[in-house]
């Protein structure tokens, strides 16, 4: 096992959803004011009912960012025919602020996996300028790659993900 490999690569977030990229902006995702999202950590549906606080780094208030939240393992990781399911889309977020200062194009839908353990990914893109991004017609089969290309967003500047299974689930080996 190679030591200190990028968790996004190991967890196949880079690969299944994103192109390889280097983080250039800080992003902090916090649920319930105390649960920082750590890569490949586990959160229960009951902990993610409300949208998290998303803090975006950078230094120039004029730089705008787009936040995408997707589930690539919908409806089930063994048969992800709805990859990716769009849970949240916020655009025009000014640097150094948070998601609440952007425009919510697609409202936050709390993930409720029914089968298997899903990865839930937050991706941040830098916008070339302030742009109106219309909501897609539906949430399923949203392809982040294509979306980024279509709106000229380039490579991601930050990403983080967590794992989620149904509330009563006991699946998955014990991590530690």
């Amino acid at each position, binding site marked *: 096992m190679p030591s200190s*490999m990028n968790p996004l690569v190991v967890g196949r977030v880079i690969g299944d959803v994103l192109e390889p990229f280097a983080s250039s902006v800080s992003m902090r995702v916090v649920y319930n004011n105390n649960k920082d999202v750590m890569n490949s950590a586990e959160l229960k549906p009951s902990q993610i009912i409300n949208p998290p606080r998303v803090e975006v780094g950078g230094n120039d208030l004029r730089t705008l960012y787009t936040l995408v939240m997707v589930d690539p393992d919908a409806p089930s990781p063994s048969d992800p025919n709805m990859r990716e399911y769009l849970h949240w889309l916020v655009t025009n977020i000014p640097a150094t602020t948070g998601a609440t200062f952007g425009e919510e194009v697609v409202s936050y839908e709390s993930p409720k996996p029914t089968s298997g353990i899903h990865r839930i990914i937050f991706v941040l893109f830098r916008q070339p300028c302030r742009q109106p991004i219309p909501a897609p017609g539906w949430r399923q089969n949203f392809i982040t790659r294509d979306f980024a290309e279509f709106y000229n967003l380039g490579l991601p500047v930050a990403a983080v993900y967590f794992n989620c299974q149904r509330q009563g689930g006991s699946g*998955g080996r014990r991590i530690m």
Partner: protein
Amino acid sequence: MASSKVVSTNPDLPRDSSISPICSLLSDLNPTSMDDLLKSITPAAKTVDDVWKEIVGGAAAHPAANDDTLQMTLEDFLTKAGAVREEDVRGGGGGGGPSSLPFPLPEGSSSSVEPFGNGVAPSPSVHKGKRRAVEEPVDKATLQKQRRMIKNRESAARSRERKQAYTSELEFLVHQLEQENARLLNEEADMRRQRKKQLVECIIPIEVMSKPKKKLRRVNSAPSSL
């Protein structure tokens, strides 16, 4: 698991125990018929290398032969192999596709060449084995078992990935925090030194001003004699 390259036109093909159980389950090897099939596919006297090049060439024609991006399961391979059988395409073409599979070796090896070596030999005989599977219900159950095993393997692989990703994340955070901690400790030590220096250099003498004693006022308050 030793993966022997069993590409050969030798009818007395060694039935190695190292060959994947799936292949041995699929193939009901009849050496003579396989030899005939191989001869029909490769009319001229071809060497092992020629046949191999053919197959690899067929594989190269198929897009995205990368383990990381191609998520084809053995299940799909079985379907493909079955489809190939039905269309009765030459064995090389059918075998060429799945050569890029992450063949279900326990270590999840990324080599596409070696495991495929196991797949080549039984491939023509898959024709025979698969045809029989449709007729006999016993093999259907076996197929279901295969599917279950493949799914379980994938699930186990995902579980391992989760665990490894979490560990990597922790390692990264530990490293980050250690650095920040060291930096902050240094900063604190620096600031202490600075402050001490300042204090030593600029000792301001403090004068203690005593409160002026209250003197008694002398006033002429004696009563007048008039």
